[in-house]
């Protein structure tokens, strides 16, 4: 029984860490974007204030049952992925469900939430939401291809589908996978640009066209849930990249440094880019990123 309580406490700690780190990154990204555009920008803790404000609000209307369920679906994805992806190496508090799922499972649990949230967005009847969803799903087909190719290359090369095993490979050989499988890393990072939905791939929310797309009918607690789920999910994805390509992290400071370095890539790429159309975005991912994915697979097979 004690073990169960320990597991549950560990899970709660993990989720809180993920929430705090993820939401700080979002605040920082607002600040950095503003500085690049020569504005002053909000303080980095602005997103905490926003989240607190949203959480304390009450909603007045709803459009039906799925609208309640959608954000809960989204939360399943975020929390499940942060529980399954190893946060720290060999720390008893962060073990969670690490050994219960593998990479294929992660790939599939990661789409559960967006699809569930899409259902919630669909019931509101707002055409902008549905358009945002179709764009998001289409773009997902785009960036999943190079991303899966990178993962397949890793899995083929090291004969495992487990994230923990891939981390151990890096510790044993003393070399990060981003150096020993460079093409896979390039393909995965290019896919990451689409995963984080900064410009030029922000076609889902598309502030000036779709009025924040799938989220447009959500306010108060719903928006808070979606927002916190987004930040937890961002942290989970960054941690997955760190685990796979940068040897994981021994303590939280190391993890924060590594994840933030990775987070800067889509953010800074986005600051200077205009927005693609959906089909341009899809074809972009099927161009160079897929080429690097092929190289990664060839590299994994030949060497």
């Amino acid at each position, binding site marked *: 029984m004690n073990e169960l309580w320990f597991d549950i406490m560990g899970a709660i700690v993990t989720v809180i860490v993920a929430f705090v780190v993820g939401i700080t990154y979002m605040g920082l990204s607002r600040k950095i974007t503003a500085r690049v555009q020569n504005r002053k920008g909000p303080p980095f803790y602005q997103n905490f204030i926003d989240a607190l404000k949203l959480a304390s609000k009450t909603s007045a209307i709803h459009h039906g049952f799925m609208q309640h369920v959608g954000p809960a679906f989204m939360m399943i994805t975020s929390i499940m992925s942060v529980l399954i992806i190893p946060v720290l190496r060999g720390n008893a508090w962060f073990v969670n469900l690490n050994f219960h799922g593998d990479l294929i499972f992660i790939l599939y649990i990661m789409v559960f939430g967006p699809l569930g949230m899409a259902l919630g967005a669909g019931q*509101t009847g707002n055409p902008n939401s549905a358009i945002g969803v179709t764009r998001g799903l289409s773009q997902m087909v785009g960036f999943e291809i190079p991303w899966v190719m990178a993962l397949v290359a890793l899995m083929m090369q090291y004969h495992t589908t487990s994230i923990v095993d891939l981390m151990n490979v890096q510790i044993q050989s003393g070399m990060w996978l981003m150096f020993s499988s460079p093409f896979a890393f390039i393909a995965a990072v290019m896919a990451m640009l689409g995963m984080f939905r900064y410009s030029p791939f922000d076609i889902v929310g598309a502030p000036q066209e779709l009025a924040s797309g799938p989220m447009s009918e959500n306010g108060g607690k719903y928006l808070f849930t979606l927002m916190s789920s987004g930040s937890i999910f961002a942290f989970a994805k960054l941690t997955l990249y760190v685990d796979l390509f940068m040897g994981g992290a021994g303590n939280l400071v190391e993890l924060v440094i590594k994840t933030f370095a990775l987070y800067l890539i889509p953010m800074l790429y986005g600051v200077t880019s205009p927005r693609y159309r959906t089909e341009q975005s899809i074809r972009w991912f099927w161009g160079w990123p897929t080429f690097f994915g092929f190289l990664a697979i060839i590299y994994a097979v030949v060497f």
Partner: protein
Amino acid sequence: MNYIILVVFLGGALLTFFAGKINNVLQDILFLASILVPASLFFAYVHAGNIFNLTLGGIHLSLGINAMSWLFALIVLGLGSMAAFYSVSFMKGKERRGYFYFNFILTIMAMTGILMSRDLVSFFIFWEIMTWSSYLMTVYNGKDVQTVGIKYFVFSAIGAYAMLMAIVVIHSINGSFMIEDLVRSFPEMPVNMQILIPVLLLTGFGVKAAIMPLHVWAPGAYSNAPMAYTSIFSGALSKMGIYGMVIVMVSLLSYVPEGYWFREVIAWMGGITAVIGTLWAIKQDDAKKLLAYSSIAQLGYIIVGIGIGTPLAMMAGLFLAVVHALFKGTLFLAVGAIERQTGTSNFREVTGLIRKMPWTFVASLISIISLAGIPPMGGFVGKWMLYESLLTSNHYLLVIVIFFSSTAAFLYCYKFLFGFFLGQEEKEWANVKEAPVLMVVPMLILSFFSFLLGTYPGIILKPIDAGMQYLGYGITQNHLWQTSVIFNTWGNQVVLQPLLYSIIAIFLFFLIFLTIKSFKQTRYVTTKDISSSGEVPKEHENLTFSVDFMQPFMRAVEPVMRRQIDKYYTGLANGLEALFDFMRKIYTGNGQTYAIYVIVFVVILLLFKDILF
């Protein structure tokens, strides 16, 4: 016992057909009885090993069951019983009920017969009964008989003749029709026969399994048959092709050196089928067509699994076959329910049914999640095993192809749910009611099983394991399955139970957090009461989004969609038609013309008699 079941089916079919002349209720009861009684007899009394022999006109016929065919019989009779309950309600008030019931029972009988056949002659006879009864169902509506019916018929005929040729060839070599003899003698056959026989048989089975390029009949036939029947058509009947393929791929081809190439080619054909089916499914505006193309794609996955043929891949293929029967059966039934309640199955016409048909929505939602392969549903387990088997057997490009197809499948999954249930609620559909209980309950039962298999796949993996051991897979012990843990050959695992519990815990926590207060505080408003750039839309404004739903994606893949195998077939058919037109100029059907031919022939004969003789 084996033949009694078939006799009960046949007798039931006839009785049901004629009972319609007396009383409709009697007919319904007889229909249910003639599906359920043989089904329960089957599961109670038929075991592997009891064999019934019959000699008919010098040909030795033999009926029996083995562990492999028992698995498929589970699909056929399980889905068949559910669809039978549904049909009773579905056919209420429709015309030609006797015709429908008769062919329904006959199809189930033929499929059971195929699974029981131990010799090729009875196999072929039942195969033809199945083809004929399904053809009659395809033209049940009397719509598009020229295009859809003929297409299905021509392809079935091609398949049947290929199979018949194979059977004749086998008999001329072996002198026996028994499948066992074929399996025994196949490795010693000459090489050209080792290639010819599988090619012919796979053509026959490939037509029913809708493998590319033999799939063009499927969208039309699936969408034209009544939905209560299509759930069997897609869920069970197509699995007969898979069953045949399993026999050919495993029992015959794994013992000869050419088998490797057959496997690779078939697996790649399956992969391409999956991609084509998915892309075309996204394009469809009619739910029936969408599901039909989706069936083609899903059968592609199954064929990939069977084609690869490692123990894990085989298990994945067979597990997907079972799960596909569950979720696709449910989805076709759901479309049938919607069509019955609203009169149409087109996404452009129907929207916003979620509040009117909640239970149909729940069943469709679970099945769609299962179809998309998302945990914790049964589809995920099948997909997981398929990926792992492709990875561990070094099919790194095929795994990308499959992944592309199954990611793109999310698009049509969402389209299906959004098109029918979500979006703007329109006045036109304000008075739609939920389907009758007898239609909803079978859907819910089937979708419950696809949920159950996602956490406890061991329930169905045990019979699959037994079937595979019958086929000669000795080494399934690598994946010695506990009820809810799945392994691959590299030793990686997914433990399903804690994952399910976590998912449920998180879901409930946030549902309570979001809803308990919200349900009290918030009030329901219509889908017209939304924020649209700060303006409140007027009552007459049309905000429904259903035309060109996936347009951006279709634009991105447009070059692929330009090529259609159907066009080549149409070109071939037009060419043949021109040839036949030319023949008709000679064979005019006019007696006088023929008389002239005869006279001309005699004159030529007389003129040249010195040279010729």
